[in-house]
């Protein structure tokens, strides 16, 4: 059996980040990617928060093929007959060192594969790993078709479904309660049109999230990210909610209904749909993060459940890159010590616990159960919009004082047993 120092299963951001770190230190690394090229099977919303990872590979990010630095955050709460949009702009969002960028994965992942290749990693496309090879419980390599390749350590970064890892009992199978499905269209629009519609300076980008009527009360929401010459427009819906409610119709048609809503239609007008894609998303938070290492292997990125939907911020790619980085550091230390057993690789989980990855997931421990509350997707977007609608309405009757109007709305929609109970829950946010 052929043998290398390290095999990386999956040429996504976690795997490539690990390969880059390992190859930079001179290890023999082979990345096996089942697509025609890195990024061929990947989907993001999407936006990458670079701030948390900028110091990990500081030489990389200045030349990365990002789409637009996000300068404006938009949130729209959609009720029946009224909606409310907040637009938040802060100088620091997209100043000299922008905190986040919109990205398209086929471009970003191919670029990172090239960078890992320049460091000496072998990135092999069109190669699907069929099995993790094990001996006495230890992962000793992989089988791809008729080829068996051995490795001291296998970095398992196969994506969110984790078919290989769960098949080998290294993590649980994905459960519907902890997962959502995201599906989106990439819609081409001229850059000037994008900048006009989202109030952007040339080159700047916007992230726009939608809550409420868009998912018909199911856990989830709409998203819109501006790329250089296109927008990514899509929906995320919790799988448990989706499955529970067959009356909502077919899942894919929600996106067409979304595009036809009067608030959305002008935003996509004149655009040309160029691609349609879908992907599962882990939303269970830290409770569903498995043990991250064992004899001869580490789990990274989505396979390790490292993603976080905190309603207004949605993250995963920064966790993937950071977990790949820390995986590489742990493998290097294990190789140096000559111990690639679980004990030798335990530093991986320790360093993730000390980093933002598991700290942020720990901080957000209660979020996955809080956002299961359907009122977040029905009552509140409606109530906020209704309240503001009342403030701006002048009718034939003599008007009330503003304070009275506000108080009536607040008392009706925000001060009852259900909402007070919600407020008590939300203290954990």
């Amino acid at each position, binding site marked *: 059996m052929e043998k290398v120092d390290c095999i990386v299963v999956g040429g996504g951001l976690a795997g490539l980040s690990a390969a880059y770190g390992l190859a930079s230190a001179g290890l023999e690394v082979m990345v096996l990617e089942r697509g*025609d090229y890195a990024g061929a099977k990947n989907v993001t919303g999407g936006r990458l928060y670079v701030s948390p990872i900028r110091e990990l590979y500081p030489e990389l990010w200045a030349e990365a093929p990002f789409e637009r630095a996000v300068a404006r955050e938009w949130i729209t709460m959609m009720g029946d007959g009224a909606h409310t949009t907040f637009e938040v702009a802060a100088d620091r969002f997209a100043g000299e060192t922008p905190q986040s960028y919109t990205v398209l994965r*086929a471009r970003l992942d191919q670029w990172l594969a090239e960078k890992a290749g320049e460091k000496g990693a072998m990135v092999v496309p069109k190669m699907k790993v069929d099995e993790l090879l094990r001996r006495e419980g230890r992962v000793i390599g992989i089988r791809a078709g008729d080829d068996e390749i051995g490795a001291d350590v296998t970095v398992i970064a196969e994506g969110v479904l984790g078919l290989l890892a769960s098949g080998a009992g290294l993590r649980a199978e994905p459960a519907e309660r902890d997962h959502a499905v995201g599906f989106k269209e990439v819609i081409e629009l001229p850059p000037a049109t994008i900048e006009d519609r989202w109030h952007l300076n040339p080159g700047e980008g916007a992230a726009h999230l939608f809550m409420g009527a868009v998912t018909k009360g199911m856990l989830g929401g709409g998203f819109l990210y501006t790329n250089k010459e296109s927008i990514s427009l899509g929906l995320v819906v919790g799988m448990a909610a989706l499955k529970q409610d067959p009356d909502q119709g077919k899942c894919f048609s929600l996106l067409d209904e979304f595009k036809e809503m009067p608030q959305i239609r002008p935003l996509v007008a004149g655009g040309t749909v160029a691609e349609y894609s879908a992907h599962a998303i882990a939303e269970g938070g830290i409770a569903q993060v498995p043990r991250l290492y064992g004899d001869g292997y580490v789990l990274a990125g989505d396979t390790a459940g490292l993603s976080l939907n905190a309603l207004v911020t949605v993250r995963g790619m920064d966790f993937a890159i950071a977990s790949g980085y820390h995986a590489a550091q742990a493998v290097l230390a294990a190789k140096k010590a000559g111990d690639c057993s679980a004990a030798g690789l335990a530093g991986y989980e320790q360093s993730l616990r000390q980093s933002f990855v598991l700290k942020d997931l720990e901080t957000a421990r209660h979020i996955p159960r809080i956002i299961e509350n359907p009122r977040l997707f029905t009552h509140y977007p409606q109530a906020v919009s209704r309240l503001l609608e009342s403030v701006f309405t002048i009718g034939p009757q003599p008007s009330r004082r503003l304070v009275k109007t506000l108080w009536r709305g607040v008392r009706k929609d925000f001060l009852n047993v259900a909402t007070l109970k919600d407020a008590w829950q939300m203290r954990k946010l």
Partner: protein
Amino acid sequence: MEIDAKLGLDVFKLDKEPHIVVKNEICSTVCVNRACLYVCPADLYELDDQHRIVVNWEGCLECGTCLICCDARALEWTYPRGEFGVQYRMS
């Protein structure tokens, strides 16, 4: 926009063998909700004239939603072989 038209925008490389196989003997005995018929974002699942579930696997976006939502475990589901299946150019 019709779902078929959307899928027509994507690049698919088709293998000879399907990567999803529906075990209808389980669907017809164990399954109660037939979630695959409405959760698939590519709308690939349908009933044939004998009320058996068929999957038009050629247009699969490889998201795994059907697999995760299938309580009856009636799907044999793997990724397509290397270099086959959907190849996203942007996303």
